[in-house]
Structures are given as C-alpha cells and as structure tokens.
C-alpha cells in the first residue's frame, strides 16, 4: 500500500466501472457467493463495483438459468411463519430442548415495529442494550428473540444491509443467529450443499453482528459461531433445530472481504475509460449497445468453470466466451488441471495428434497426450 492517494482512487475507478447504473446492494446470499470463485477477475470487479450482474447478463442476452418455483417460495414463507408463530412457540420448544433455554426466557422483540428507516439504528441499540446486560451489575432486561433485525456490513466501501431471520439471545448469555430454511432434515441429515449455503449465509450475519458489537465497544465473542439452523423435519412441517458450527465459513468470508479491498491490481490493468455501464433510460431499461458492453467485459479475464453454472449470474456469457475461445475450462476444473499448462482444446488435440510441436514446458503433457491418443486409437480399431 503506497500512501493515501491510492485509497480514493480505486473507489472512483469502481464507480466509473458501474457508471450511471444504480448499484445493486449486496445481500447475505451475494456476499456468501463471493467465495464461490474468488479467482475470477471479472466477477471480482463487477462485485466490487456493485454491478447488477443479473441485469447485465440479461441485457447481453445470456440470462442466468436461476429461478425459484412459486411453490418453493410459498412453502418457504409458510414455514418461516410457522416457526415464528405464537411468540416463536415452536422455536422456544426447540431451543429449550436443544440448548436448555431457561423457561423464563421468552421475551420477544419485533424490530420491525419501528419504521423501516429506523430498523437498522433500532437493531443496533437493541444489541447494545442486550450486550450491556451481560456485564451490568444491575439486571438489565434483554429480549430472548429479536425478530426482523437489520444489520449492516461494509463491503468494499458500500454498506450492505442484511436481514437475518431471527436473532436469539440469552442462550448462555450469547447471541445466536437463527436461520430458517425450508429444505428438509431427514433422519438427521440434509442436503449438504443446501446446509453449506445456509452456513455461509449465516456466517455473514454472524460477522455483521460481531462487527456491530465491536463498533459499540463490546466483545465480538458474544456472538456465537454456532448458528441455529431450523428446518422441517422428515416429511412433516414440524420444525427441528440443529446447531451448525460456522467457524470455517467465517474464516473464508473474512478472507474474501479482505480481498475485495485489494482490487487495485486488477484495476491497474484496465484501460482508463473502461466501463460496464448499462446506461439505463428513465424506466431503468438498459440502452447500451450489447456488443459494446460485451466488448468492455471481454477486457477483463473471467475464470470460467462449470461450477459457475450454479453460482454466478454471468455464467452463460462466460461459458459462451470460453466456447468461442475453445478453452478447456469448459470441461471442468479437473480436466483443466490435468492438462497442465495447456489451455486450449485445439492445442491439446494438436499435441495428442502430434501435429503440433510442444512449446517449452509442454513436452511432458505432450508425451502423455500422445500416449493417451495412441491407446485410444488402439482400442477403437
């Protein structure tokens, strides 16, 4: 880091990248997704600049293949309502069973009772109040549940507002993030990918709460790294709670947030006038010529992998680019890794056929590929 001058610079550059398009605020899911492909410079820049990747992909004609069924959405909402119904009656039962929550701990506080614009400040003051109660000489009353809290976390200079499902307090004097998900836990097990996604998301809330407490001068350790995951059990609607340790997810998250503040190197490599602006009109419809935007994006290096197809809004655009380039990335990280330094399909096949002379450092992969090609031919004839 060389002095103050550079500090403002990247922020300005990132804003120029976004141009007149309004920034897309990060939610917990988006923050959690930062760890999905940290090596991708294109994604890092777009996220850093707060660009709406979904809108960009759509405008480019490569809408992402993500969508949620209305049935799933309804089910999710219904389940969350059930968990919180009647003063969190179900949740109380589970926490009493799982964590020995004392019977007198039932106080419920709905943060949303204040106006929307005050939710965040109100959340802070409630957390502050609750945290004080742990050290106060006089007993200070703190609620057991804080419903609809609104937290904030600074992401590359932008403030992201985050809405955990619920925060529980008074489980051994520590805050626990409660994450309500509608995927099922069947015989004690759930879809590991879904649990991992929930854990990453919950880690964002834990971090946001710890940051808030630290800002307020409290011990961030008051927020437990164990989050309470609430899911339907087996095939019924009855909720079940499981503790999930998110320490690893927290470590990953911290790493990724630190990375986001070090985009200078990536920005330095870009032409000064480069922008990913969609130039929205008054109705918010993008007006930028598609070819121009595609061209601007192609100035940044993507690190496409098939895994992007389930995590990144830009995936179809980048896959198409990889196809045009004939990149072996298309076939997956493992294939790409196996091919050593050979990045293109044509190059690899040329080496296998012997029609291409291996460049320096390619002798070994060339030998392996030629051998593999010989064996394939032998088997196919």
């Amino acid at each position, binding site marked *: 880091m060389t002095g103050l001058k550079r500090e403002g610079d990247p922020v300005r550059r990132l804003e120029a990248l976004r141009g007149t398009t309004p920034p897309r605020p990060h939610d917990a899911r988006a923050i959690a997704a930062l760890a999905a492909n940290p*090596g991708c410079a294109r994604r890092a820049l777009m996220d850093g600049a707060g660009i709406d990747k979904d809108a960009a992909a759509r405008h480019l004609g490569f809408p992402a293949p993500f969508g949620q069924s209305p049935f799933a959405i309804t089910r999710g909402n219904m389940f969350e309502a059930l968990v919180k119904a009647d003063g969190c009656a179900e949740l109380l039962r589970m926490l009493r069973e799982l964590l020995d929550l004392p019977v007198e701990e039932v106080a419920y506080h709905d943060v949303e009772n204040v106006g929307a614009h005050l939710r965040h400040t109100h959340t802070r003051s409630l957390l502050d109040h609750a945290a004080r109660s742990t050290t106060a000489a006089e007993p200070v009353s703190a609620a057991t549940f804080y419903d609809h809290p609104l937290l904030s976390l600074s992401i590359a200079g932008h403030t992201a507002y985050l809405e955990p499902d619920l925060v529980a307090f008074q489980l051994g004097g520590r805050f626990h993030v409660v994450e309500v998900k509608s995927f099922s836990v069947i015989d004690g097990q759930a879809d590991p990918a879904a649990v*991992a996604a929930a854990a990453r998301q919950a880690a964002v809330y834990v971090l946001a709460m710890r940051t808030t407490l630290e800002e307020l001068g409290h011990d961030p350790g008051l927020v437990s790294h164990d989050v309470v995951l609430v899911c339907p059990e087996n095939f019924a609607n009855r909720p079940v709670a499981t503790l999930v*340790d998110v320490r690893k997810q927290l470590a990953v998250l911290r790493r990724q947030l630190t990375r986001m503040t070090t985009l200078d190197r990536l920005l330095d490599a870009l032409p000064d006038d480069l922008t990913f602006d969609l130039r929205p009109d008054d109705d918010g419809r993008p007006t930028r010529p598609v070819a121009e935007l595609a061209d601007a994006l192609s100035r940044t290096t993507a690190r496409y992998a098939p895994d992007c197809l389930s995590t990144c809004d830009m995936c179809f655009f980048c896959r198409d680019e990889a196809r045009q380039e004939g990149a072996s990335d298309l076939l997956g990280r493992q294939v790409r*890794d196996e091919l050593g330094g050979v990045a293109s399909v044509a190059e690899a096949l040329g080496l296998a056929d012997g029609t291409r002379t291996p460049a320096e450092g390619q002798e070994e992969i060339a030998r392996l590929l030629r051998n593999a090609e010989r064996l394939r031919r032998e088997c196919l004839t």
Partner: protein
Amino acid sequence: MTDSPEQVIQNVLADLPRHRGVVVDSPPGAGKSTLVVRAAAHIAATGEPLMIVAQTNEQVDDLVVRISDKHPHLRVGRLSAGGYTPPPRLLELAGVRVATRVQDLNDPDIVIATADKWAWISERVWPWAIVDEAYQMRSDKLLRIAGLFERALFVGDPGQLDPFSIVDGDRWSGLSWDPLQSAVSVLLRHNPDLPVHRLPVSWRLPASAAPVVSQAFYPFTGFRSGTGPGDRRLELTTGGMGTVHDRALEEAARSGWALLELPNRHTVRTDGEAVQAVAMLAERLLQRGAVASSEQGERPVTADRIAVGAAHRDQVAAIRAAGLPPEITVDTANRLQGREYDVTIVLHPLSGRRDATAFHLESGRLCVLASRHRHACVVVARAGIAELLDAHPSAEPVQLGVPVKFPDGWEANQAVLEHLARHRV
C-alpha cells in the same frame, strides 16, 4: 505451562485402571512408541495379559523389537497372518514367539498383531489392550476387535491423514458410529467422558520445526520441541557449487527449512522439472556428505536417513524412476505416516496445480510431509501456490451432526507457505 512429558505419562498410567478407555494424542515424534512400551511394561507388571493393536506389519514388528529391547524378560507373542515372513531381527529375540494362532503363542505376557489380524481372533477376552495409531484406524476395524478387550489405551496422532474408503460414505455421515471416521472419533463420541491426554513435547522435530508444525496443524493444543535452537546441527562437509540445489541444502542446513521454488507454471502432476529437482537435491545431499549432530551424537546422513515425500503415487513412481539410490525412502504421505528421518525432501502437493482439490488441501497430508524430519525439510514447489490458495473456491458441503475438523486445510497450507517463503532460494 503444560505438564512435563514424564508427568503426562504418569497421569496416563494412573488413569488406566480408572477408566475403560484412555486416549493419548501424540503430535509428530512426541514419544508415542516410548509411551506404548512403557504402558505395556506397566500393565504386564500387574500380571494381567495385554493385547496390542497396530495398523501395519512394520509397526507391529517395530513394537515387538522395542518392547523386547527394553524389557527382555517379557514374553511377547507376535500374531500374524498366513503369508507373513518375520524379519530376521525378530527371530533373533529370545522372548518373542511368532505364530498364526493365539494358542500357538504359549500364553505370553503380551500379544501383538495388526488390527486386521485381530479381527479374526475370537473367544478370548484380554483385560487390557493398547491400540496404536488409533487416529489412522477406521472405526469399523475397532468395531471388529473391541469385543476382545475390557479396557484400552488409545494412542495416535490426530494431525495426520484421516482414514478413507474407495466408496462414498455419505449415507453414514453424522452417525456417531460412522464407519469411515477414525477409531478415536467414534470412541469419544460414544464415551465423551474418557480422559484425553496430550504428549507435550516432540523429540523428533527440531526447534526450527516444532513451532511451525504446531501452529499450522495443532492450533488449539500445541506442542514444543524437546531440543533447543542449536541443539541439532546439520553440516555439509563438502563445498557447494552455488547451484540452487546446493543453496537450498545450505539454507536447510542452516535453518532447518528450505523452499526451492521453480518458475510459476501449470504442469502435469509428474512435473519433470520438479521431479528432477527433488532427485538432484537427494543426490547432492549425499554427495555433500551431510552430517547430523544431535543429542544422539554425530552421524552421517546416509541414504536410509533420507526420505522423499509426495502426494500422489504417480509422482512417487516418477521420482523413483529418476534414479535415486534405492536406500532412500520415496513414498506418499499416506505411507510415510509414523516414520522418521534426518532430512526429508518434499514435493509440495500444490506445486504446478491450477486448482486445489480437497485432496490437495487436506491438512493431514501436508502435516505428515512437513513433520518427518529430525534436522531439515526441503520443499520443492512451483511459484504460484499463494495465488492458487487465494483463488480457491470455498464451497465445501456441510453434513449435519459432523463435528467441524480443525485445522482447516486452507489455513494450514497458508501458514506453512508463509513460513516457507522465508526460506526461499
């Protein structure tokens, strides 16, 4: 701060009659075998029969020899499978008898066999057992033999590689008796009140290595080295020629670590340049007449005191094919577990890779490779591992009910890499 090693051993022995099971965690070279031998003699002295379980035939033979050496009056039975030929050093021992059936052992004080062999024994119960390398033992093996003993001492290194299977074990994940978990994990999940002791001092790792390995792989428990800085010396008796290989050896001799960094490039796994570098280092180490001095005296670092470690079998094959003297051990991390050398040369698991997989990042793998040496460890790696770690996507699935394992492979790799960077040539 912590108890002395002797105090820990005393505590362990005192705990034995008080609990059904006692676990002792032993970081690399912390005197696990010494403890096993001590405990064996201690139990044998009570006059009650003892069974000892180890994981491989070499480990069994090793223990037989050690016990017999230290306590020649004890009668030791070495139980083996049909195809086993005992090494000559075993046959020379007076109190040792080798057989394939328990009844042919003539009722010795101690019976030792591999876990696989024990699984075939039945209809007898020993009052005592010692299970060695218990963290590398899969729990289904323990299930097969746990009926043979009443009480047991479990000894092992929690930082090394976890057991594995060729089949997908997801259907058992989260179960307290998941057969793919280690014997100790399953034991402790069912018996959380059993005492767990830790040996606090590594006698193997030099003062230059213990803190690094301790922080990277044993972040919560930790250990220290039994020797101080300067107690171990590695000297190269002939002069160097200033090549990178020589400089790497010199750095290793001086500081206990060296990182021979090759140019950043994505390569095939059997990266020829890296394999050559490894072979050259081994060759030069011998040529330069390395001499190791330690509390055990001064001795030349002969080929049998050198090991080369790698992650994959094809890498091992490629290194072997590079023409090393056959006395030098070349093997995968898996097979180097529990072994000890003066100098190790390691092909970094992430060298030349573009993407790290869970296999490459498994902390136990790097831990084994970085903790086999008494004097120095030379690592060969291509530049770019830091970037690779930085770009690593973190999306590991999470199974409910499975305790999170520490250290995290990524963090451990990062910690070791940071340390190695200070010894780069």
